[in-house]
């Protein structure tokens, strides 16, 4: 699996401001990768370009061994006319039925499956939304702040679960939590502040599979690299 952004330039319609100016980066292999950067650096824009939801940029995004890319963000909602369990069941492909229950239990939302989306807490909403994407067919899932409003412990548990349950899939996780991405991600694309060249830098994360494997010194080193890059 590989995604490569080659010489990407993009400016928002009817503005002179470049979000990306000759951006290059490459992510290789399945696993949990991250897209990091300060607010307004274009993380969501790049994610939508990779997902094919945004066009009008120059340059090329090429991928190999990736045919289905899904993009999800934390502002998504379920329709309000039925409970989330019913809605999830109606959009679960045959191949994902067994996995649905496992995900619901792993994400800790089994007690609210009959509730309407509007009745859930923000964290429950984000988890429910993520589950319905995870049970779809995909090669790369882009998670744009998908675990926002979920407590740190649960977030860590969910990420480790994803890495265990989907060893062959690729994830691109967008988060502002530097420690989290440094700990769990394999490769981290850092979108740098304006004026810095090159505009993006790829850093290797600790890619932990268990919290116990954490070596503080190594984590600090990775975080330092991210800070320097950004």
């Amino acid at each position, binding site marked *: 699996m590989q995604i490569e952004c080659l010489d990407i330039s993009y400016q928002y319609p009817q503005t002179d401001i470049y979000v990306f100016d000759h951006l290059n980066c490459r992510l290789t292999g399945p696993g949990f990768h991250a897209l990091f950067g300060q607010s307004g650096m274009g993380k969501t824009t790049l994610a939508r370009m990779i*997902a094919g*939801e945004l066009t009008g940029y120059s340059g090329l995004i090429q991928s190999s061994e990736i045919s289905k890319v*899904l*993009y*999800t*963000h934390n*502002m*998504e*909602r*379920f*329709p*309000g*006319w*039925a*409970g989330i369990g019913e809605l999830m069941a109606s*959009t679960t492909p045959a191949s994902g039925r067994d996995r649905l229950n496992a995900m619901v239990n792993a994400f800790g939302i089994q*007690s*609210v499956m*009959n*509730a*309407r989306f509007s*009745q*859930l*807490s923000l964290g*429950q909403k984000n988890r429910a*939304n993520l589950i*319905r*994407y995870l049970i*779809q067919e995909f090669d790369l899932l882009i998670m744009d702040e998908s675990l926002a409003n979920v407590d740190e412990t649960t977030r860590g548990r969910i990420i480790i679960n994803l890495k265990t349950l989907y060893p062959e899939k690729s994830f691109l996780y967008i988060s502002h939590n530097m420690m989290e991405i440094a700990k769990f991600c394999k490769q981290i694309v850092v979108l740098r502040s304006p004026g810095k060249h090159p505009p993006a830098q790829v850093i290797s994360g600790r890619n932990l599979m268990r919290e116990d494997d954490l070596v503080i010194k190594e984590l600090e080193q990775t975080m330092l690299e991210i800070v320097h890059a950004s």
Partner: protein
Amino acid sequence: MLHRRIQQFVLVYFLGILALLLVKYLLNLSDYVIPSPVEIWQTCRTVFARYVISVLDTLWIAIVGHMISIALAFLVGIVGRPNSWFGSLIKAAAYNIQAYPIVAVAPIIFILIGDGLITRLLIAVLICYFPLLLSVIGILSEPVDSIEHFYVATKRMNWRLQVRIRAYENISKLITVIAGGGTMAVVGTIVAEFIAADAGIGYSIRTALYQSDLSKILTALFLIGIGTSLYLTALEWVGNVIQKRLVSSKATPDK
């Protein structure tokens, strides 16, 4: 709801009557121009039963016309909702046609198909259809990205689901627009009867106008107000029931 609406109407109506009588006595106008309270009361008692039947006759035409308008507005709104050439043509056509006062077009309908039931119904439909269409098409062509994104990304989106999502998300607006359309349907029917009919309360008003009988017109206005209030209250009640059913939860979440 009904109690408050009728109370408000009766208050406004009697304030109007009071203003008329004030003008009458201040300017010393004759009973021929503005009848006395006693004459208004006597006329009311004489024509009340006949006018009630006329108002009911008008109301059922208005209701049928309103329902046809709603069905048509949703049909055209669904067809015209995509941001396609056809969609924009429908929107432009609806805006342009709405610019013509239907009251001015009504005599053409009368000339073409004569007076009677069809003319009344057609004019009622035309008067409430275009505002309804513009609102419905506006609501149905506005994407609800936060909900639709998943279905688009997973290639599950179809026109029925899209309409369902957009209608559900804007249910209060739709109910308000439909209830507002009810008033226009009543007005449309009365206008049609005034121009081209031999039945209904609009026809009764025209007859009273030819007789210069303000008492009859005032009685008709009173009954029209009550009839319209009843219809609007019924519409709002149905709207509330639909809304409550749609938003009611199946279970209480354990947070």
